[in-house]
């Protein structure tokens, strides 16, 4: 019989629409992070480091990049004879066929997958946070409390608490009350979206709630179990945990990695983060290059100046180019004589020669002011920016653009340039 004590279900189907053009063609968990990683590498590495070797990854939105990245799980040692990583997209059924309509609905549609492993416990994770966590310690806590559900929670500033699901506990960690995005939070202990369920409890709750439209853990499953009098506990976590849901927080989390001793340290021997490294040669730093306070991925070639940047694998920065305070993802080519300030440039983009990004004052974006803010220039993947153009702040560019798209060679601050055309 196949038997796993705990299996993990990793929710990776979300778009992450607040990342704008960065997630136009990839799901948020597949977005690059920290020079050589993707966001999903963190929960996947946490799983294998915690001794969990069976992980179902639930995909829905733009899964192609995720599928190629995960493959059969070799980088995380999740290529197993029994268990390992399985990609679980929504599928057609004889009676009904539907997309994943909510987090719990997605898990419900994969009850058969979970059942195969006869688990005692199921760990529910989301694929969009940056953190290192030992789920085994959390499981021990769950067992010690004879809990039905354990929710990982961390203290946040009380003014931020209304963005999260908030748990109110007694001194033993037992959850008394649960508030989803409350306007008047009664506690500053925010749910991190990480749950351990005892399998029978999860299974019963999913069956009970199977007809709830858009069935969600925070909104439906947890309150339902709470009403049923199940034993709910909060597992307090005090380490580094970052939700990179907005361009601002994404940029900040990357920039924190270049501190001399970063709070989130990737250089520790303990608790390694694994990723799919398809580019392995060393980076080349040319004679005239200047690099200051940056991290740079494998196979990059730097001929210009790079200051306060996170540069991905296979990137080329041309001669005479200055890049500051920016995130440059994998395989981006930047020409000669450019000046780039505070930009996020997604994978495979090509920036011509003499391009200036991030000039002028911060004008509010006219298209999506909530998304394209923070004074950033955001450039989507495989975008082409022609020679000699200037681009203002709070802007977004996506697609193959040519000089005609820039009136007078300029994209003013607050403008958005999205072209449907694909790169030939």
């Amino acid at each position, binding site marked *: 019989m196949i038997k796993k004590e705990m299996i993990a279900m990793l929710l990776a189907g979300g778009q992450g629409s607040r990342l704008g053009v960065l997630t136009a063609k990839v799901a948020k968990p597949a977005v690059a992070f920290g*020079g050589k990683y993707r966001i999903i590498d963190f929960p996947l590495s946490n799983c294998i480091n915690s001794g969990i070797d069976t992980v179902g990854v639930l995909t829905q939105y733009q899964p192609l990049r995720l599928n190629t990245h995960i493959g059969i799980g070799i980088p995380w040692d999740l290529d197993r004879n029994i268990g390992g990583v399985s990609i679980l997209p929504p599928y057609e059924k004889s009676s009904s066929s539907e997309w994943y309509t909510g987090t719990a609905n997605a898990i419900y549609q994969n009850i058969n997958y979970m059942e195969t492993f006869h688990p005692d416990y199921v760990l529910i994770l989301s694929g969009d946070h940056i953190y290192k966590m030992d789920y085994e310690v959390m499981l021990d806590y769950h067992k010690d409390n004879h809990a039905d559900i354990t929710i990982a929670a961390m203290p946040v500033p009380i003014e931020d608490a209304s963005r999260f699901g908030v748990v109110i506990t007694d001194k033993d960690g037992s959850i008394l009350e649960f508030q989803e995005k409350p306007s008047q939070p009664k506690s500053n202990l925010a749910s991190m979206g990480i749950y351990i369920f005892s399998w029978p409890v999860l299974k019963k709750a999913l069956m009970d709630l199977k007809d709830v439209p858009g069935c969600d853990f925070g909104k439906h499953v947890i309150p339902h179990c709470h009403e049923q009098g199940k034993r709910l506990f909060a597992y307090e976590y005090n380490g580094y945990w970052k939700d990179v849901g907005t361009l601002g927080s994404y940029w900040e989390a990357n920039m924190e990695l270049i501190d001399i001793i970063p709070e989130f340290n990737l250089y520790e021997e303990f608790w390694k983060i694994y990723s799919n490294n398809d580019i392995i040669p*060393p*980076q*080349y730093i040319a004679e005239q290059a200047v690099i200051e306070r940056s991290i740079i991925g494998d196979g990059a070639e730097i001929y210009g100046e790079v200051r306060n940047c996170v540069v991905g694998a296979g990137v080329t920065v041309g001669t005479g180019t200055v890049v500051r305070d920016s995130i440059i993802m994998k395989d981006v080519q930047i020409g000669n004589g450019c000046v780039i300030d505070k930009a996020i440039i997604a994978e495979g983009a090509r920036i011509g020669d003499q391009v200036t990004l991030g000039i002028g004052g911060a004008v509010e974006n006219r298209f999506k002011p909530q998304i394209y803010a923070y004074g950033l220039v955001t450039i989507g993947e495989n975008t082409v920016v022609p020679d000699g153009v200037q681009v203002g702040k709070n802007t977004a560019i996506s697609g193959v653009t040519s000089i005609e798209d820039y009136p007078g060679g300029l994209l003013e601050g607050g403008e958005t340039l999205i072209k449907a055309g694909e790169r030939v």
Partner: protein
Amino acid sequence: MRAVGIVLAGGNSHKMKELTHKRAVAAMPIAGSYRAIDFALSNMSNSHIQKVAVLTQYNARSLNEHLNSSKWWDFGRKQGGLYVFTPTITLDNGYWYRGTADAIYQNLDFLKRCHEPYVIITSGDAVYKMDYNKVLEYHIAKKADITVVCKDVEPGEDVSRFGTVKMDGSMRIEEFEEKPMIATSNTISTGIYILRRRQLIDLIEYCAEEERYDFVTDILIRYKNLKRIYGYKIKGYWSNISTVDAYYQTNMDFLRPEVRNDFFKGHPSIYSKVSDLPPAKYNPGASVKNSLVASGCIINGTVENSILFKKIFVGNNCVIKNSIILNDVYLGDNTYIENCIVESRDTIRANARYVGENGVKIVVEKNERYAL
């Protein structure tokens, strides 16, 4: 698949001095992110050769560690795979490999059980990119018994550590001299051979009967008038690393754009074992010029015309010039290193000064590491 691969990786080279004290030549780190044997193995994999035997003997621990999984070169197959053969004591043999031919002889059962018609033999200590299928086509077109891959070197270059060949107009090898004191040809053998598997088995068995053990002297040179031995000239970069100077120079060649682009960016890629290190980090005080930097490095000092392998820590005010720092080295503050090769997994104390005055100096301190 039409060929099975054999990589001869048993060798030690006293010309590599301290560098081979702890590893076989085939396990020498190359160009920041690779090991010497990666080139032969990647060439095999890229030529769609799925079954490869690596013959090891001298100090194979480091090499075995590197080969602990066949995944990285895509050899984890049902049809084929990566085999590592070290000499073992058997009922009828108690010897180490007494030569290259003997190494193959001691593993002849492996070759006999293969079904592939051809064998490609290569060494594990050369840096090159090659599609062996092209050589195989040439071998078949020439109706050769053995094809030897050769390389033209600059006239006047010292070839005394190689075998030199002379060919006639049809590329048939007429003369073969092993390690000549005075060279009469500037075409050298690269140690890459192709021949039919049955032919190889016959030659090796006959060799063993006569108690001869070396592939070059006892097969190539001895049979050159009897068998049709042809030369195939390799056009691209090829370099053997088995002396300190050659090793240093081969690494430094990767600072040249044409070499770097060919190996790092050209198709197909060279594969290696993945070490899951974070990106290289440049702290305030870092100044890096014309250098290669591998992943996991943290740089606080000056690096010029050098190669930093994986996981190097360069302390404050350090200066590194024209040097190669092998994997996992910690360089304390104010260290000055010029014209050196710093041996791997070492900790260089602060304020150290090493300069290679007449040629390259090998630095080995073997200090315990307390920092980090």
